[in-house]
């Protein structure tokens, strides 16, 4: 189904199932521990062997020698895979560093061997007997030292690294009120609960991988490319995923090494990456240094907006897009953005929840707070004053829908924003209390997505698509979509996901999954409706599908009757046209945060959080709320504690466990409120929906940082906002 004109009224608009706060259909499986995650498949319990990954002990250099004798002789060892014996390997399109290193080492904990043994314990014990001698080279590990020499970044998903409109330099120089400040955001770990894990089996030259992966079709391609197999010889199965946040967009070492280990051991092999490997072996959100210059008239109109960002990555492949939202968020006639980067030798930087916008807004939305203060304006008003309804770099191009102002206004009202005091002025006992606000912004991305739907004579509709559910609720919104389209209750719909044997979907990433994958199911269901009507001898144009029945005029059939001669199968997908080029599709929100800061110690505790979101039709308010509060929680972590600490001498993330890399615990998170504006966007898809999974994190950290400033009067521009960065600015203790 082509989607190149805005949606008109369609069966989804009935909102009998869509739009309802529905519990997850797979929830009971997860809460009873019966949803089978990658490492848990029992199909090969009798024959499977275990692989344990050996990570490089250096960040950059070469393997001088490798002695496997002791490890091979260890109890239970079946095989050891290294680059020297694995045969020729390719590199996936989405991989930057190689997944099996050697002799060249590209980053710390890059896999250099997989030890396969009868038991996990034997594999782990033998792994420590793999003797590797390295020759260490000098590497680049300190982003701040790269800034002066950094070059222009390459394209980011087709977007230019630099943009310029008007004459920024002159406008900034002439602006009566100016801000010129530098910010930094650290490297972040996705820190999802489930590790990267895979079980591999071979039948001849056909490989099946039970794995944990957000993007099945991409990853089939990259597994095939890496192992030199035709795509059709690779099957990926990933029905349940214990969190991904971008960390599982791509094939990682667990999958490739499980496949190589299984080949070498001639047994099914399972491999999971332990937490330290998740941090230094896989990808992370790269650190940024950002410079923001804002120029405004005295009455608060932005006349100059400049945003530059520096980041690093292995071989300088992809910048962190921290300036991307600045191209679209606020009005201003003279503007420039620039991304610069340097090849560095830390583990691979790559996408993490709201790549670009998350760290970009961490800086930009502090800058807006600072500028509002310079102007003597309320930061909510300042943002509203600089709203734009068109793409500010291309004013002929409107937003498809933009209700940022309404989010800000409603949030301010609900949160009691008017009670916000001057910096450092509000006390509650020993606590310094502050309020902060930030805008949330994340583009809506659409990706072609297909599905197959089957109708049985019992009136059951089964949906098959390689879409993934990474904890987001895909199962449920897809079931809701099919139920709405086919006029069925939810329990008459079966959803099967995450199998490369199914039609190729959008997958889960970039908050494109919900709208795109349900639109694909919509397309397949539209076809099934047509087929069912025809089978029943009804004119498809006249047929209505409701309450398990198909009706046209006075004729009425049970839906299952259409399959009484055999299962009815329809397959289709949504193919997005150029609507997103004609009008900018984005999601918007406003985050409000209240913090208390211990006036003695500087400990920061969040007291209240509110998000008001405008993100098109909300398919399932319960699942969407969970997405947003999850994002708010992750944003709180980014604001207050999350930082992969870089050892700038040895080139690795030192705090590579969850004791050292702190993420928020329950005690850190207070009551969180989420409000969704009631809106639909017909330009996005027949679902009229947009993504919310990433909007939730966007701007949160800045709202927290701004609240800390309001509480203490101490401005911290380097995340995370920890007490050591402002303890010298706290009031004297008496």
């Amino acid at each position, binding site marked *: 189904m082509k989607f190149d004109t805005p949606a008109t009224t369609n069966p989804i608009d009935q909102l009998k199932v869509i739009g309802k706060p529905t519990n997850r259909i797979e929830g009971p499986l997860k809460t009873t521990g019966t949803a089978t995650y990658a490492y848990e498949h029992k199909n090969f319990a009798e024959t499977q062997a275990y692989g344990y990954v050996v990570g490089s*002990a*250096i960040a950059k250099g070469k393997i001088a020698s490798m002695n496997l004798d002791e490890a091979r002789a260890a*109890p239970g060892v079946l095989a050891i895979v290294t680059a020297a014996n694995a045969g020729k390997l390719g590199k996936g399109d989405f991989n930057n560093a190689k997944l099996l290193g050697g002799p060249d080492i590209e980053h710390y904990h890059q896999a250099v061997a997989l030890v396969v043994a009868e038991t996990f*314990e034997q594999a*782990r*014990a033998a792994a*420590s007997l793999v003797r590797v001698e390295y020759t260490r080279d000098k590497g680049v590990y300190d982003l701040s030292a790269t800034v002066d020499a950094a070059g222009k970044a390459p394209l980011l998903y087709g977007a230019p690294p630099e943009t310029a409109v008007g004459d920024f330099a002159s406008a900034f120089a002439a602006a009566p009120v100016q801000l010129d400040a530098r910010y930094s955001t650290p490297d972040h770990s996705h820190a999802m609960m489930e590790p990267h894990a895979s079980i591999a089996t071979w039948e001849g030259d056909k490989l099946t991988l039970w794995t944990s992966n957000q993007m099945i079709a991409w990853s089939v391609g990259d597994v095939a490319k890496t192992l030199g197999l035709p795509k059709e010889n690779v099957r990926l199965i990933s029905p349940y995923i214990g969190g991904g946040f971008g960390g599982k967009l791509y094939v990682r070492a667990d999958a490739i090494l499980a496949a190589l280990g299984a080949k070498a051991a001639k047994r099914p092999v399972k491999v999971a990456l332990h937490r*330290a490997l998740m941090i230094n072996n896989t990808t992370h959100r790269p650190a940024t240094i950002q410079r923001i210059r804002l120029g405004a008239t005295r009455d608060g109109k932005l006349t100059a907006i400049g945003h530059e960002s520096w980041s690093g990555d292995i071989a300088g492949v992809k910048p962190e897009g921290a300036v991307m939202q600045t191209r679209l968020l606020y009005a201003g006639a003279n503007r420039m953005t620039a991304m610069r980067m340097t090849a560095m030798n830390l583990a691979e930087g790559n996408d993490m929840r709201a790549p670009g916008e998350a760290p970009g807004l961490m800086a930009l939305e502090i800058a807006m707070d600072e500028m509002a203060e310079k102007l003597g304006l309320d930061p909510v008003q300042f943002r509203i004053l600089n709203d734009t309804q068109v793409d500010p770099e291309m004013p002929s191009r409107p937003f498809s829908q933009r209700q940022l102002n309404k989010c800000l206004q409603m949030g301010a009202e609900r949160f009691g924003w008017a009670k916000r005091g001057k910096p450092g002025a509000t006390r509650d006992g*020993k606590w310094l209390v502050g309020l902060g606000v930030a805008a949330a912004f994340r583009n809506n991305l659409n990706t072609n997505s297909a599905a197959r739907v089957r109708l049985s004579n019992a009136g059951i509709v089964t949906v098959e698509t390689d879409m993934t559910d990474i904890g987001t609720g895909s199962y449920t919104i897809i079931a809701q979509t099919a139920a709405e389209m086919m006029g069925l209750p939810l329990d008459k719909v079966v959803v099967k996901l995450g199998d490369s044997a199914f039609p190729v979907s959008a997958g889960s990433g970039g908050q494109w999954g919900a709208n795109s994958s349900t639109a694909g199911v919509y397309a397949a269901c539209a076809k099934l409706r047509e087929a069912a009507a025809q089978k029943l001898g009804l004119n498809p144009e006249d047929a209505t599908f409701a309450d398990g029945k198909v009706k046209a005029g006075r004729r009425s059939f049970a839906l299952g009757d259409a399959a009484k001669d055999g299962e009815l199968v329809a397959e289709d997908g949504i193919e997005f046209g150029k609507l997103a080029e004609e009008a900018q599709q984005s999601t918007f929100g406003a985050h409000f945060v209240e913090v208390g800061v*211990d*006036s*003695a*110690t*500087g*400990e920061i*505790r969040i007291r209240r959080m509110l998000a008001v979101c405008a993100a098109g039709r909300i398919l399932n308010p319960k699942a969407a709320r969970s997405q947003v509060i999850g994002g708010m929680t992750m944003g709180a972590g980014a604001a*207050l*504690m999350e930082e992969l*600490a*870089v*050892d700038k*001498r*040895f080139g690795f993330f*030192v*705090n*590579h*466990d969850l*004791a*050292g890399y*702190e993420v*928020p*615990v*329950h*005690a*850190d998170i207070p009551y969180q409120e989420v409000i969704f504006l009631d809106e639909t966007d017909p330009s996005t898809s027949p679902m009229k929906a947009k993504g919310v999974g990433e909007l939730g994190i966007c701007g949160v950290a800045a709202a927290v940082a701004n609240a800390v400033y309001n509480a203490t009067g101490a401005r911290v521009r380097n995340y*995370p906002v*920890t*007490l*050591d960065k402002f*303890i*010298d600015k*706290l009031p004297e*203790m008496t």
Partner: protein
Amino acid sequence: MKSFTYERVDTPAAATAAFARTRGARYIAGGTNLLDLMKLEIETPGHLIDISRLALDKIEPTSEGGLRIGAMVRNTDLASDARIRRDYGLVSRALVAGASGQLRNKATMGGNILQRTRCPYFYDTNQPCNKRQPGSGCAAIGGFNRILAVIGASDACIATQPSDVGVALRALDASVETVDVAGKTRAIPYADFYRAPGKTPHLETALTPGELITAVTLPKPVGGTHIYHKVRDRASYAFALISVGAVVQRDGTGRVALGGVAYKPWRIEAAEAELPRGAKAVTAKLLAGAKTTHENAYKLPLVERTLAGVLAQAKG
């Protein structure tokens, strides 16, 4: 993890005898730290002697009017004991500030004070660490050391001892009762329990090989207001950046011990004389001679400010 053998013992004498006859043995009680260290091959015992069933799980009065806490008393039971809560609030508060409910259900009194440092370089066997591998060097000095020691450290090691309850035990003048492999018992003042790192940071305590902790004793109650303030980046389930354990009397005198600043809970009795003059005066003496890095220098003002907050809270 290296393969190991295992046995369970029923008496302290059986435990020490088992230790004496097996090379490379370690006692295991709750295992909340040792098992992690074994998985990472930071500890590689060839034999584990499970002491968790020893009948050392009672909290009993001593003839001096204090309490004897058996080495196997679980953190949860200790923290919730009515006598502890009434007379030794600092112990209870420090305990519940640490770890999680699940860990406290497993962790024991004896094991708690033997838990090893959280220095991240100690946990990465690719990195030099004099504590883990004597003579290999210290990666933390000059590396990521925001959480590490500011006093009492050496050029070989700047690790901290992470126990929360240790801070309380130090402030309350606890002792550690032991029995050694020869069957000799002794009481080690907790103040003397940890060894300064010097050039041998791998030697951490006064215990001789195989010497088994049987109890921790608390002298009779000292009264006063007991406050434990643990400062951390998140609200729970994190090791202390620094912590202050204080017992403050109505007349403004009292005791103060610190966590997160040294290889042991840090207390200088002479500094306590300054308590009536306030936190600044106390901290100046308590942390005299401190040596900080650019990453952990914040701990000095943080100690002073936290103590000031604690003293203000004690005044009510």
